[in-house]
């Protein structure tokens, strides 16, 4: 039965689904490119982080979820947030430290925003901590009979934290419907994976928790989607937690200020060939789901949409100084 269900959920994608993959990957990249412009214009406050080359992982995995499911994204997972319904204006405003619904009202930075209704939690910077948070969300869902799934994203580097270990083990033992997506992009800041951990495949970490671990090509959006569907099906069937390792690559530095001179040029060149968007464009064309023209049209629509959204964000005011004193406790909460 479980098996049947799995097949059901992982096969026969519709054209609409494929085009959605494209839409969200393209949107992610264009949004980040737009942010880069804002960054150069000194409108972005603080660092700017890119997910260039990793869009397929974020989009493919989040696309396997449904309403009610909750994700905890990181800086490389804007694509997953977009799939879950964040508005580009929220991200623009957030990066520009503006106020407004959908932002953190200037309290926190980059993608640190939550919308429990849309299904994303605002992570904290301390890497690994979100794993047990999402185990708790999954636990509550189970208690409340909601049959939801939670998904926590983190990088190869974050697997070294004690919090990662405690969180995954906790979810495993309590058989919680939580999926951990390890985005292995080759580096943690300047540190290559071989200095982070001796395993070649981070999916092997699953063996230490007695849960399924699967490796997937993180630059193949459909493969990511399918692998996630399998894990989601297990989770919904009550079979508990899973780990998915998405093998991908960080095509830019850790953040805008990092020129990643420590990354061998050949490696970057090699991975440029595997660009998930370019690759998916070819796939769509080959399978007659798109033409150069239709893609161009979609791209332009996205750009126009982002332009509007950025304008809305730019028109959003900064929060008022005094508002910084609110919301520490329920008793002083203004923003609900």
């Amino acid at each position, binding site marked *: 039965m479980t098996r049947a269900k799995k097949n059901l959920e992982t096969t026969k994608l519709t054209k609409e689904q494929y085009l959605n993959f494209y839409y969200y990957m393209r949107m992610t990249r264009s949004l980040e490119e737009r942010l880069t412009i804002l960054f150069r214009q000194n409108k972005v406050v603080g660092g700017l982080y890119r997910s260039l080359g990793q869009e397929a992982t974020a989009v493919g995995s989040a696309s396997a979820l449904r309403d009610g499911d909750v994700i905890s994204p990181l800086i490389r997972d804007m694509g997953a947030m977009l799939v879950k319904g964040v508005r580009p204006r929220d991200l623009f405003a957030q990066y520009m430290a503006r106020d407004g619904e959908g932002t953190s009202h200037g309290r926190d930075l980059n993608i*640190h925003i939550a919308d429990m209704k849309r299904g994303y939690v605002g992570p904290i910077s301390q890497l690994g*901590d979100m794993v047990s948070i999402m185990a708790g969300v999954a*636990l*509550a869902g189970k208690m409340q009979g909601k049959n939801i799934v939670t998904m926590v994203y983190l990088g190869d580097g974050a697997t070294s934290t004690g919090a990662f270990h405690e969180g995954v083990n906790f979810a495993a*033992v309590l058989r919680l419907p939580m999926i951990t997506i390890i985005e292995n992009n080759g580096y943690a800041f300047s540190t290559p994976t071989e200095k982070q951990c001796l395993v070649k495949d981070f999916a092997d970490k699953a063996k230490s928790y007695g849960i399924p671990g699967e490796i997937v090509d993180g630059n193949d959006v459909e493969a990511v989607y399918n692998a996630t569907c399998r894990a989601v099906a297990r989770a919904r069937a009550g079979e508990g937690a899973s780990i998915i390792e998405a093998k991908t690559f960080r095509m830019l530095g850790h953040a805008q200020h990092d020129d990643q001179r420590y990354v061998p040029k050949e490696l970057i060149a090699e991975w440029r060939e595997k660009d998930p968007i370019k690759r998916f464009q070819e796939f769509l064309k080959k399978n007659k789901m798109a033409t150069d023209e239709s893609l161009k049209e979609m791209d332009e629509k996205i750009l126009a949409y982002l332009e509007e959204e950025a304008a809305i964000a730019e028109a959003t005011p900064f929060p008022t100084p005094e508002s910084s004193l609110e*919301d520490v406790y*329920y008793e002083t909460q203004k923003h609900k």
Partner: protein
Amino acid sequence: MAVVTYLEAIRQALMEEMQRDESVFLLGEDIGAYGGAFKVTEGLYEKFGPNRVIDTPISESAIVGAACGAAMMGMRPVAEIQFIDFISCAFDQLTNYAAKSRYRQGVGIPIVVRGPCGGGGRGGPFHSQNVESFFLNTPGLKMVEPATAYDAKGLLKAAIRDEDPVLYFEHKFLYRRIKEDIPDDDYIVPIGKAKVRREGKDISVITYGAMVHVALEAAEKLQSEGISLEVVDLRSLLPYDEEAILNSVVKTSKVILLHEATRIGGYAGEIAAVIAEKAFDCLDGPIVRVTSPDTPVPFSPPLEDFFLPNAEKLMKAARQLAAY
């Protein structure tokens, strides 16, 4: 009314809150069938089952993290830390996730993290600590520490119903040593309200937890010497009852701050600062701290007895201050 120990009062609060509200559940190490290292949760597993009394792996960070996550979904988790000393392993989750969530992402974290604190039990450096000061500089947290069975129950209920993360410190020396008649019906002790345990006119002793009993003992003994101590039991450490503190100082003009935690960086500093800032005019003498000395909590009986504040040490300080 029934006579219950401090420990039973805690158990009652858990039981009643779980009965009252389905979203209340417990998680921690060995709290299920075993009933917890101190048997605080005894009987609750049998009553509420494994889904609401959850045994966890030895993972304090995950215990607190999972509690936060569940709270975000509308649950009311109560996490037990087997000895409060081990809360150090969850320091990060508490101060960075739980404390800041409402502020930075608009999502409240109504959790209670409770556990046995304090010395006197020959527990040594890792089973005797008082950890309140570690968390005092973290906006977003609340902290309470009851001194009586009545408060143990009422404060725990208030903590469970509170919309924010509350650290609930239960002094293990009091678990079975004190008991009292407490009402059968539902009541809470509001967070943020101190209680004057004994009225006095010469010196205000501001304290909390097990030290309340030390203060009362000293007050009783000093009466015959003509020194009248007022004993203020803070009950809530964060937020604290500034009004009650200042009222007492206005009345007595002299203050001793008493706590079991060590001196430098201990809780007394905060209260000294508030008094020295807001009641400076009323002060008729130095603000005196009576605390443990600045060492880890030693294990051996003669050392621990020497280490802990007691009625004699307090009386000595009070006599000096009275003569000031």
